[in-house]
C-alpha cells in the first residue's frame, strides 16, 4: 500500500487535498478530495437581525460575494413580504452580470488557464497566471486590466465590490446617477470585447488541442439544474428552477419549493453534505448507475436553457449545440460553457445600462420585521444558490439553511475525480502531469470550497474506489 498526498489542490477557491491510495500492484485503491476549513454559518446566523444577513453571508465567499449578497437579499424580501421597485431590481441584476464577468475572467485566465496555455504537464512553477504573463504578456495585461475594471464598475454602482452592502431587503441602497451610467457604458463595452476575444481564442488555440482529453477525462452521466425564465430562456438572477435528467426530461419549479426536490445526504467520510434529487430515487454515486445526481454551474445552465436572450451568446450556444448536442456530459466543457456565459453577461450588462429605468431614484421600499420564512435563490457563477431563512416576530433569524453551488456539485466532483483517476493512473505509473490532469477535472467545476465548507469543517471528501479489469471494486477506503 502506498499513499500519495497531493496537498493543496491548487488554483481553486479554498483549501483541499487529494489522497490517493495505491494497492500492492500499484493500482489506485482509493482517492479522496478533502477540504480543510471550518466555519459554521448556519448556526451563527441564528439570533442575528435578518436584515444583517446580506452583509454577513457575503463572507461565505470572497470570490462570489455578490451571489450570496443577492440570494440573501432576495430571501429577506420574501421574509419581509416585499417586492423591490424596478430600478432596485435592475441594479441588483446589473451587479450580478458584472460579478459574473469578473469571476468568469478570473477563473478562465487566473485559475484554469495555466493548464491550457502552458499545458497540463508543464513545469509547476510556470503552469499558472505568472507563466501566462511571460508567454502572452499583452493578453495577460489586458486580462488583469479588464478584470480589475469589472471590480471598479461594481464599486461605482455599489460602493464596495468585495463583500458589498448595497442590496438591502426591499431593494438597493444606492441609486445610479446619470453620470455614473455614462462612465460605465464604455467599460462594459471593453469587457464585451475581452469576452469576444476569449471565446475566439479558446475555440482556435485551446479546445482543439485538448479535444481528446475533453472527450474522455472526467466524463460522467448526470442530470442538470439551472434557472430559466417562463419561456425557457437562460437567466442568471431570477426565474424558475429547471431540473433536467440525463435524458433531457425536465420539471420546472419555484425556488421556494426546493425542499420537494432537493435533499442532502450526510456521509460518514465527508463534512460536506451531498445534495441530490430525491424524486429520482435513492442517492447513489455508482458511476455505472448514478441515482439522484445532478450538476449545476455553467454547463448545467447551458444544458437546461432552451435559448439565450442576447444575440452573440445565442449564436455561440447554437454552435456549441451543433458540435456537442444538448445533454453534454463532458466535464471539461464547463470551460467552453463558461465563455458563452461571459459573453452573455457582458451583453446583459450593456442592455441593463441602456435601460432608461436604471437611473430611477426609487430603488428601495421600507420593510417591517415579522415572523416569516423566506427563500432566496439566484444563479452564482458556480451554479444554483439557495438561502432559506426563518424569523421570529422581531425579525431575528431562528433558522437558516444554505445550499451553495459547490455543495450541489459535491457528488459529481467526486464522480469525475474518480473517473479521471481510474483512467489515468495505471500500474503504479504516475507523474505530476497526470496528477495535475486529475486536478483539472476538479478545476472545471470552478469549485468554491470556502462556500462548500460554510457550514462545517468542510471536507469535500472524494472516495476513489479502485476497480479491477472486470469492473469489480477491489477496495474502498474512506478518509484518512
Amino acid at each position, binding site marked *: 500500500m502506498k499513499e500519495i498526498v497531493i496537498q493543496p489542490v491548487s488554483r481553486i477557491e479554498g483549501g483541499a487535498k487529494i489522497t490517493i491510495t495505491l494497492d500492492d500492484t500499484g493500482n489506485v485503491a482509493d482517492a479522496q478530495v478533502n477540504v480543510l476549513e471550518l466555519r459554521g454559518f448556519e448556526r*451563527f446566523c441564528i439570533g442575528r437581525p435578518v436584515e444583517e444577513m446580506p452583509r454577513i453571508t457575503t463572507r461565505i465567499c470572497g470570490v462570489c*460575494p455578490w451571489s450570496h449578497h443577492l440570494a440573501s437579499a432576495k430571501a429577506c424580501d420574501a421574509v419581509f413580504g416585499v417586492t423591490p421597485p424596478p430600478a432596485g431590481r435592475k441594479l441588483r441584476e446589473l451587479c450580478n452580470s458584472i460579478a459574473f464577468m469578473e469571476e468568469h475572467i478570473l477563473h478562465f485566465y487566473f*485559475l484554469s488557464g495555466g493548464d491550457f496555455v502552458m499545458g497540463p504537464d508543464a513545469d*509547476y512553477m510556470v503552469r499558472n497566471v505568472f507563466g501566462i504573463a511571460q508567454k502572452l504578456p499583452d493578453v495577460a495585461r489586458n486580462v488583469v486590466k479588464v478584470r480589475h475594471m469589472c*471590480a471598479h464598475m461594481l464599486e461605482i454602482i455599489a460602493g464596495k465590490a468585495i463583500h458589498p452592502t*448595497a442590496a438591502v431587503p426591499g431593494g438597493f441602497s444606492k441609486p445610479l446617477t446619470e453620470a455614473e451610467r455614462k462612465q460605465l457604458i464604455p467599460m462594459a463595452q471593453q469587457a464585451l470585447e475581452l469576452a469576444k476575444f476569449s471565446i475566439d481564442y479558446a475555440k482556435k488555440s485551446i479546445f482543439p488541442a485538448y479535444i481528446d482529453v475533453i472527450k474522455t477525462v472526467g466524463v460522467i452521466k448526470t442530470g442538470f439544474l439551472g434557472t430559466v425564465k417562463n419561456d425557457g430562456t437562460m437567466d442568471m438572477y431570477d426565474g424558475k428552477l429547471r431540473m433536467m435528467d440525463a435524458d433531457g426530461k425536465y420539471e420546472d419549479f419555484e425556488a421556494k419549493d426546493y425542499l420537494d426536490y432537493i435533499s*442532502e445526504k450526510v456521509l460518514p467520510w465527508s463534512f460536506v453534505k451531498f445534495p441530490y434529487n430525491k424524486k429520482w430515487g435513492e442517492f447513489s454515486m455508482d458511476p455505472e448507475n448514478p441515482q439522484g445526481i445532478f450538476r449545476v454551474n455553467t454547463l448545467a445552465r447551458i444544458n437546461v436553457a432552451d435559448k439565450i436572450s442576447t444575440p452573440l451568446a445565442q449564436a455561440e450556444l447554437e454552435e456549441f449545440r451543433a458540435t456537442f448536442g444538448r445533454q453534454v456530459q463532458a466535464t471539461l466543457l464547463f470551460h467552453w460553457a463558461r465563455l458563452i456565459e461571459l459573453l452573455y453577461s457582458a451583453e446583459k450588462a450593456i442592455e441593463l445600462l441602456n435601460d432608461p429605468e436604471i437611473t430611477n431614484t426609487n430603488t428601495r421600499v421600507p420593510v417591517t420585521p415579522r415572523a416569516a420564512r423566506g427563500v432566496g435563490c439566484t444563479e452564482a457563477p458556480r451554479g444554483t444558490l439557495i438561502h432559506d431563512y426563518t424569523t421570529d416576530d422581531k425579525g431575528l433569524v431562528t433558522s437558516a439553511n444554505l445550499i451553495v453551488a459547490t455543495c450541489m456539485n459535491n457528488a459529481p466532483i467526486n464522480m469525475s475525480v474518480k473517473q479521471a483517476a481510474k483512467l489515468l493512473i495505471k500500474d503504479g505509473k504516475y507523474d505530476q502531469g497526470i496528477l495535475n490532469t486529475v486536478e483539472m477535472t476538479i478545476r472545471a467545476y470552478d469549485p468554491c470550497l470556502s462556500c462548500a465548507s460554510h457550514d462545517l469543517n468542510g471536507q469535500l471528501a472524494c472516495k476513489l474506489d479502485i476497480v479491477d479489469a472486470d469492473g469489480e471494486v477491489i477496495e474502498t477506503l474512506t478518509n484518512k
Partner: protein
Amino acid sequence: MVRVAEEWFAVCGGCEVSILDIGEPLLDLLPSLEFVHMPVLMDHKLYGQTGEKSKMEIPDADIGIVTGSIRNQENKELAEEMRRKCKIIISLGSCANFGGIPALGNMYTNAQIYDTNYRNDTSTEAGENPSEGLPALTDRVYSVNEVIKVDISIPGCPPTPEWIASALVALLEGKSFSLPERSVCDDCPVVREKKAKVDIRRPLQAPEFTPGRYDNMRCLNEQGILCLGPATRTGCGGSEKTPRCIKAYMPCRGCYGPIRDGANPMVDMMGALSSVGLDPKQIEDRMATFNRFIGSGRLRPMPVR
C-alpha cells in the same frame, strides 16, 4: 528579488482577490517578487509535486502572507510551518487579525454547530457527525496572532489593495510600514451636528441623502441608523478616502477592526452613541453587532436559552 509565500486558513478568499485587485501595479511589482508558494494561483505542493514527502514543507521565503482564521489543527500546523520558513509574516485581513466573521461561531459550541448542520437543517437527512479521518477542530476560532508571532498586521475585510501594495513596496525598499490610527468617521464626508435627530433604529428604511452626493448627508448615527464608524479603523476608502459602505449610503459594520491595538470598540461605541444622545441599550443583538468582525478573543458561547 524578494521571495513570497502565501497561505490561507479558514477563509472566504476575498483577501486573495484583494491582492489581485492591486491590478496593473501588481504586474509592475512582479519582476521584484518571486512567488514560491501560493495555492490559489500556483501548483507548489506541500508534500512534493507527486506527494513523495512525508512532512509538510513550504520553501524558505522572505515574506509570508497569511489569511483566514485558525479553525482546525491543520490550519495551526500550516501557520507554524509558515512561521518557521518566512522571515516576515504579514497577517492579512480581519479573519487573520481578529477572527473575522467566522469568529461569530465562537458564540456557539462545536457540538451546537454539528447539531445544526447534520440533524436540524431542513433539507438534511439526519446523520451522525462525519468523523472518519477528518482533522480535529480547535475548540474555538483563533486569530493568527493568537497562534504564531506576526510581524505586520493588515486588517480589513477585505483589506484595501493600496495597503497591501504599500506594505510590499515598503518591505522591498527596506522601510517600515504602519497604518493610520484614525477612525472611519475621520474620513467620512457627511455632516455632523453632534446631536441625534431621532432614536436609534434598525436599517430597515433608507436614510435621507441626495443621490450622487455625500457631503450634505447627515451622519447616519445622527439619523438614528447604527453606524460603527466611530470605533473602526479607517482605510476601506483607499486613496478616495470616503468609506465604502457610506458610498452606498449604508452604515459601517466595523470590518476593519479596532482603531488601534488594544482599543475596545464596544466601549468606544457606547461613548460615541451616548455623546450624541443615543441609547445603546436599544440596539438589537448588541454583543454580536459590536464584535461582528473581532470575535476571536471576545465572543464566548452563549448561555443555553
